[in-house]
């Protein structure tokens, strides 16, 4: 089934992510790869804030870290986070994409190349269009895609862009996303 879950979000996604991480069991069977836009200068404290309620460890990976199940990897501030074919993290300081670094599109695209149909991609609340293209790549690769219900989003721009770019499998609110994840074996 799912070998990895990638989640992208921006403005308004922090509370959603916190709820999701709080709901997942300690031995969740897949890795969670998080790409959350944040202010350039907010470099520390984010992992700690996410960790407070999370049952699984949340880490900002180093380049070439192996991806392990039951762990959440938060793209470090000011780096793009790629997923290499050997299931290791690769970081990059290339220029911003969609005015974002990390860019959700890049993580999603490379994760899709690595995990193809065993990948689940989720786009949450956000104020720009990053992630829409990446979510399409996941769909094209045979993976499953979820978009947070724009009606529930604090800022629906990102989810609406994703819905406009490809045929998304599920549009779910936060609780439904959690229920979906909890069914993963």
């Amino acid at each position, binding site marked *: 089934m799912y070998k990895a879950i990638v989640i992208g979000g921006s403005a308004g996604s922090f509370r959603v992510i916190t709820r999701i991480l709080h709901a997942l069991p300690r031995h969740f069977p897949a890795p969670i790869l998080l790409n959350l836009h944040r202010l350039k200068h907010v470099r520390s404290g984010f992992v700690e804030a996410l960790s407070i309620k999370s049952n699984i460890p949340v880490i900002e990976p180093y380049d070439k870290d192996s991806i392990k199940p039951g762990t959440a990897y938060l793209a470090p501030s000011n780096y793009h986070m790629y997923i290499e074919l050997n299931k290791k993290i690769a970081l990059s300081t290339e220029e911003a994409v969609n005015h974002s670094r990390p860019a959700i599109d890049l993580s999603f695209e*490379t994760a899709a190349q690595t995990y193809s149909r065993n990948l689940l991609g989720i786009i949450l609340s956000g104020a720009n269009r990053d992630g829409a293209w990446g979510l399409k790549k996941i769909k094209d690769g045979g993976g499953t895609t979820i978009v947070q219900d724009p009606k529930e989003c604090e800022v629906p721009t990102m989810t609406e862009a994703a819905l406009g770019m490809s045929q998304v499998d599920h549009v779910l609110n936060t609780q439904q996303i959690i229920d979906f994840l909890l069914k993963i074996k």
Partner: protein
Amino acid sequence: MGLSETEIQYFISTIKNHSEYDFSGYSEKSLKRRIQKVIDDNRMDMASLIKRLQRDRNFLEKTIKDITVNTTELFRDPKVWQDLRFRVLPRFKNNKNINIWHAGCSTGQEVYSLLILLNEMGMFDKAKVLATDINEDALAEARKGLYKYRFNIGYLDNFDKVIKENPFNYEEYNDVPYSKYFRINKSDDSLLINDFLKQKPIFRKHDLVKGEDIYFAKFDLIMCRNVIIYFKYELQTQVFQMLHQHLYNQGYLLFGMHESMLGDIANKFEKKGHFYRKKY
């Protein structure tokens, strides 16, 4: 859609056959993305790109430059610069010289950041600074020391954190004016490094992959920031060995915030925070 592994390999071997550059040890995903960008920017497909690379020397060189350019900022990761200021550089205060190598300096912002720091610490005159990069265009920009103000405005906060404030003593505040080190011109969106800083470093082209000889024999501090993330493990190991050779015992090596030294060679270093200190 998307370049295949075979196409990437074909690209790498074309470059290898027609230039002195070898990208075979480069990390796949970033290399792939950069090649894709060249293809998109030139509105061509892989086959025509390869043909043009084989025939057009100037285009080949421009492509190599597009692929090897890296981003850098003034005082990126203030915490690291605070450590340099309060934990690392003071150890060299009584030395006659301090030899510094910026390996992969790109457009030079960190070269100037360190010089500013050294100047504030009264160590400017004893520093010898070598700054190298694979990309000659980046080096030319580094020599000019002329940057876009807009891109750097955010990093002036970092200047304040590193130069004006003392994280170990909040009452201390040195109101160092920016004009001491660079001139900001908002109307033409420029930030120009002052001449005395620009005259200090030796900027020189150098490809870490080839392990060519460099001027200074050994260094007290090597900064190699956000360079090795673009290399595969095997090439990293080779680069670590080369950097190790060029360090004095007790010398320091600094990578980017999310880079680390992997493999046996790490045993030859003592890890102190983000710094690697050579044991033997």
